[in-house]
């Protein structure tokens, strides 16, 4: 199994990092998050249409770059660092992964190229965001292929051209393709804590859909693991941004005639935070390598998700606390990363859920 990044992977990181610093500064994040759409179509075109960031993990025959979980993770990490505001995670990391893992060959051929080049904005509809075991209970497909039911929270459904729905019903769990704006589809934007990631409630009443693949328990777990690994990367990027800006702030802010970073109370908190982030980062990078190797530890993604969520929240809390009052203002950017951290902490399972999932894989159910 790979233990370090290859030259090509480091190059990919450099390119993504430069593009995002240029296209997604905090001012742009703030502008996008205030819009209903939630992203800037021109930037989307540049990042996904031109630079191919939505297809790094998609095979070349389907218009992607032929990478895997490691490449997806690299992009996610840089996205998290700059808090990119747009449907990349829903479309590339979630819907793209579901197509890769569950769709039939012909459907993959038809649907993946659009996702990979960003011309299709897709999302994955899961009626339970806490764990794979509960998915498919609330949405069912009838014998005629029509979908009914409700998903309480769906990422970026308000802008999705394509909704991939995991639904139960005749023939067991399946992945169903639904066009955005299909008759009977109701997408109701929700008020959210994290304004950089839009959520909607999606109701289906006899919505025409096409079954594009079977979703076995194993398939669902594989999709879940890949999404969780990508989300862990995004959180590590966010944690790193929070950590670096916070440490820098303590060097510049003077109180009692000295930089506050010279006080041990702050230094020790920063040292502990470095350790927590380093450990979570190592687990996160390892999770992607395990997924690409198709071997190793099946619990690696849950370990990564739990550790990265905790580390990112620690960095977010410290980011506010060490800035003092200014950190609690709307004007300061720290709260944007804090809110993303909070959202990601609970999306696809809280740290406690992932720790239990990991223990169940290791030792069997309690």
């Amino acid at each position, binding site marked *: 199994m790979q233990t370090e990044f290859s030259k090509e992977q480091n190059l990919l990181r450099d390119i993504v990092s430069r593009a995002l610093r240029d296209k997604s500064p905090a001012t742009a994040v703030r502008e996008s998050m205030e819009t209903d759409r939630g992203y800037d179509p021109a930037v989307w075109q540049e990042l996904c249409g031109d630079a191919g960031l939505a297809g790094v993990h998609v095979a070349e025959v389907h218009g992607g770059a032929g990478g895997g979980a490691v490449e997806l993770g690299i992009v996610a990490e840089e996205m998290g660092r700059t808090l990119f505001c747009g449907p990349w995670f829903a479309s590339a990391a979630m819907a793209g992964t579901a197509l890769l893992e569950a769709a039939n060959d012909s459907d993959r051929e038809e649907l993946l190229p659009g996702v990979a080049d960003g011309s299709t904005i897709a999302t994955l509809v899961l009626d339970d965001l806490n764990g794979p075991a509960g998915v498919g209970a609330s949405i069912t497909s009838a014998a005629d292929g029509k979908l009914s039911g409700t998903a309480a929270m769906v990422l970026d459904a308000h802008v999705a051209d394509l909704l991939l729905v995991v639904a139960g019903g005749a023939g067991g769990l399946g992945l169903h393709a639904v066009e955005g704006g299909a008759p009977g589809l109701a997408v109701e934007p929700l008020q959210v804590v994290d304004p950089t990631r839009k959520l909607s409630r999606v109701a289906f009443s006899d919505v025409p859909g096409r079954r594009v693949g079977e979703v076995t328990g194993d398939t669902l777990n594989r999709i879940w693991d890949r999404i969780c690994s990508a989300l862990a990367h995004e959180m590590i990027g966010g944690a790193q941004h929070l950590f670096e800006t916070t440490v820098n702030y303590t060097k510049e802010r003077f109180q009692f005639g000295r930089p506050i970073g010279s006080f041990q109370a702050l230094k020790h908190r920063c040292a*502990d935070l470095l350790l927590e982030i380093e450990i979570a980062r190592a687990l996160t990078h390892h999770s992607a390598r395990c997924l690409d190797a198709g071997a190793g530890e099946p619990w690696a993604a849950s370990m990564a998700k739990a*550790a990265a969520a905790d580390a990112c929240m620690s960095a977010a809390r410290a980011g506010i606390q060490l800035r003092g009052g200014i950190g609690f203002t709307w004007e300061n950017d720290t709260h944007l990363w804090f809110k993303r951290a909070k959202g990601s902490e609970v999306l696809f399972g809280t740290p406690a859920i992932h720790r*239990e999932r990991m223990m169940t894989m290791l*030792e069997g159910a309690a």
Partner: protein
Amino acid sequence: MTPDRIRSEVSAWLDANWRTDRPLIEWREILLDGGWAAPHWPEEWYGRGFTLDQTAVVAEVFREKDAVPAAQVGPRGLASETILACGSDDQKRRFLRPILTGEHTWCQLFSEPGSGSDLAGLSTRAELKDGKWIINGQKVWNTSAHHADFGLLVARTDWDVPKHQGISYFLLDMRQPGVEARPLRQMNGHQSFNEVFMTNAVVAPEDLIGGEGNGWHVAKTTLSFERRGFSRRVRGSSIDGAKQGPIYEEYEEELRIAAEPYTWYPQREGRVDLVLPRARETGAIADPATRQEIAKLLCLYTGARLASDSAEASRKAGTTEIIPAGSIGKLAASVIARQASHVHTMISGADAMLSGPDSAADGIIAEVLVSVPAISIAGGTDEIQRNIISERVLGMPKGYRADQGPFRDIKRNA
């Protein structure tokens, strides 16, 4: 020299010289004269100027042939490396050979009751009287001092200069009336260390190493070898299997004495390896709260191992400095040990009140619970590691110091 060439030369030499019926020291005299006692040392001092990788090949052949190597274990490694790096030719001539043969054992006399984390604040006094250095003061945490022949001693020779500049480094003969080593009993019941009292102990002027007032520099040299593990080379050098012959008995005794202070060290690291077996055995594995804590421990343990592997890789690529990476690893070890101790407590429940043969795993778990507090203190406290990490890795500003100027004027412990 290529590994194959080294391998064939060492093999040929051992085939011609290695015998199990010689007394240990006599064998090592032959080993020294043959040039295979310390291959990483320079040629003029018993070595061949080998790299550490080349030296590892030599050690491998010794192991394959069950040949006893030069004396390496315990604090003597710190002494020989320090003398080699900072000593005069006369000191190297007098001290190195008996270290390699195992004739002399050494101890380190650095920490004091009044200066722990602040080693440079030491106040053991060395005064030149009638051409001899007279030493007065007390040292503490001295591993193996009760049977050492010599000690690596730092003492203050000038009280009127800033603290780092008034220290000198001595090679102290421990077998003299002015030196008394008393075992120090720890909270876990073991006696791994000593206190050493020096009352008008005498050091000849030729046993000052590195020059008067230059002791801090020499001490840092010793500490850098200590960090690289030269004092804890205990495991890995043992002869495999039950080899017969008097030389093996002598050698095993040497190893046993050197290893004795460290028998509880695995326990101070928390015995993560026992967590799942104990959880299964007691049924605690079914308890949701315990499972959460075990999972946290396994994340820390696995993540720290992966992070250290990747730090090792970048160190090999020449991109990271040794000290900060070491501090991060040391802090990680503390965090892991504390979490492991917490988990062992949850698993044992009320049984955690028992120790010794009455308790779980024949007292090992009880020993974990009362040994883990050492890991965040020994070798630099967690707080000192956090200072190092924040200042040297993160570039955070140093705090203000109250220990500048002549040492005489600095407030210190009574």
